[in-house]
């Protein structure tokens, strides 16, 4: 009896999966070298269809969200105290991605309804989760607004509406610009297929962002052999100071 229900459920679920997203990325690995100056990732794909598009269906839309590793952080607000500006209130943000970019094929609300956004946490605001503030009077929304505003100015948070091209309701492509000030970690790229604001299918893949070569060597040494790293830094400084002095003496004589 139970497996009959299972089959029925499966059959009922099938029409919802009538369209599936097949996606690819131009690169799934980003190497941060010494001359790293940002990178552009091309995200492209197609819609796999088992039946023709029903007549009068809502237009197909695509949303792509690329998120960097999330870390907890604190947002501080300054206020005037005794004539000088001091950090007075703070709100702790439970998790905020170090990078977040959303690209859509149309204005955001046309692509994704409010409820679906809540469920899948696609928009920048939904991707950030705030926990309790340090002060009772602090209004958490002001602080998350400030976080988004500051990071948007630095191009760390991007909302790019209408930057996905869809052709024939089948093929789509877009590009996401990763800034030069990139943090190491696993970035997730999520691709949503929607009709009428409802998510039909979603696909998730990982982009590995890693320091390589000299960058990796210095980073690892600094964290795992801090004493050696510190002594090496001082030795290099002394050597550079001596070398410069020697060169100048040589040039003068």
């Amino acid at each position, binding site marked *: 009896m139970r497996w009959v229900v299972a089959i029925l459920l499966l059959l009922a679920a099938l029409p919802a999966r009538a369209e599936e997203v097949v996606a690819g990325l131009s690169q799934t690995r980003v190497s941060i070298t010494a001359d790293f100056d940002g990178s552009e990732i091309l995200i492209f794909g197609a819609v796999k269809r088992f039946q023709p598009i029903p007549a009068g269906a809502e237009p197909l839309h695509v949303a792509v969200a690329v998120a960097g590793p999330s870390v907890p952080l604190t947002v501080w607000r300054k206020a005037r105290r005794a004539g000088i500006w001091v950090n007075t209130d703070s709100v702790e943000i439970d998790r905020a991605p170090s990078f977040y970019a959303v690209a859509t094929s149309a204005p955001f609300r046309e692509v994704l309804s409010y409820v679906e956004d809540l469920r899948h946490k696609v928009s920048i605001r939904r991707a950030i989760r705030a926990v309790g503030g340090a002060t009772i009077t602090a209004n958490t929304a002001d602080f998350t607004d400030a976080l988004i505003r500051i990071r948007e100015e630095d191009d760390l948070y991007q909302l790019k509406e209408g930057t996905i091209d869809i052709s024939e309701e089948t093929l789509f492509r877009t590009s996401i610009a990763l800034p030069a000030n990139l943090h190491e970690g696993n970035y997730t790229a999520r691709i949503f297929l929607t009709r009428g604001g409802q998510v039909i299918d979603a696909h998730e893949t990982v982009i590995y962002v890693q320091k390589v070569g000299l960058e990796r060597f210095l980073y690892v040494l600094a964290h795992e052999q801090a004493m050696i790293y510190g002594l090496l830094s001082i030795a*290099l400084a002394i050597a550079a100071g001596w070398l410069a002095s020697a060169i100048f003496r040589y040039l003068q004589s």
Partner: protein
Amino acid sequence: MQLYLPIAEVSVNVFLLLGLGGIVGILSGMFGVGGGFLLTPLLFFVGIPPAVAVATGANQIVASSFSAVLAHLKRKTVDLRMGWVLLAGGLVGSAGGVQVFALLRRVGQVDLMVTLFYVVFLGIIGGLMFVESLNAMRKARRSGGAPKRKKHYWVHNLPFKMKFRTSGLYISVIPPLLVGAAVGVLAAIMGVGGGFIMVPAMIYLLGMPTKVVVGTSLFQIIFVTGFTTLMHATTNYSVDMLLALVLIFGGVVGAQFGTRLAVHMKAEQLRILLALLVLGVCGKLGLDLILPPAEPYSIKDAVGV
């Protein structure tokens, strides 16, 4: 040309960093200050996280001071004996200062305290130096530059007297030890070498000749900033070697030009220039505290960067 810094995790223009290092190097060679009070705020401005800027700044100062001291040693303008005495006091003071810093951090508001420290000390020292140098210049013009007698205060006659031949002083070791310790405390809290406090203290409190002051100050700055670099590298992992190397490259070249510029200038002119510079930085920091900020919000992650 952009350079990605492995510890700071930001990408910065190489030539901008070279320029910053160069300017600070020139100051270091001319005035015997490490230049940390200028370099650290400049690095913030370029977008380097504060913790990395403070730690890496200290590392850069080791190099520029060492380069400048070599030039001063050649001209015999370093009082090594005085340098060691100041350093002994300085290391004790800096160890104490690290504890004070940890206490401030627990209370919160460490940024504010550091800025207030900067404003108060830069203001007092810059103001005093400026007034004093103006008076000295006016006096020199009137009396035709008659050599003035060295002043002796009672502190100089405390026990443990020592001869400092290079400085031409025969005074107790207690005042230089105290000066070294006081500067060490401030250096640890403000994250600088402390030259801008050390130089006037040596001139006005110890009565040392200006020419010797610069080299001697640089000599002990090497050790204080080296100590700071090691502390930051082992506790905060915030020393960025790549950033330091670029700053050093600009800095050592600048320091060599600075020491040569200083030879061609009168002591009073040097002092008045340094006073103006100190007052300028003080004014900028003070305005930032008083004027309403453009962005009242700021983001700090768990590391405190």
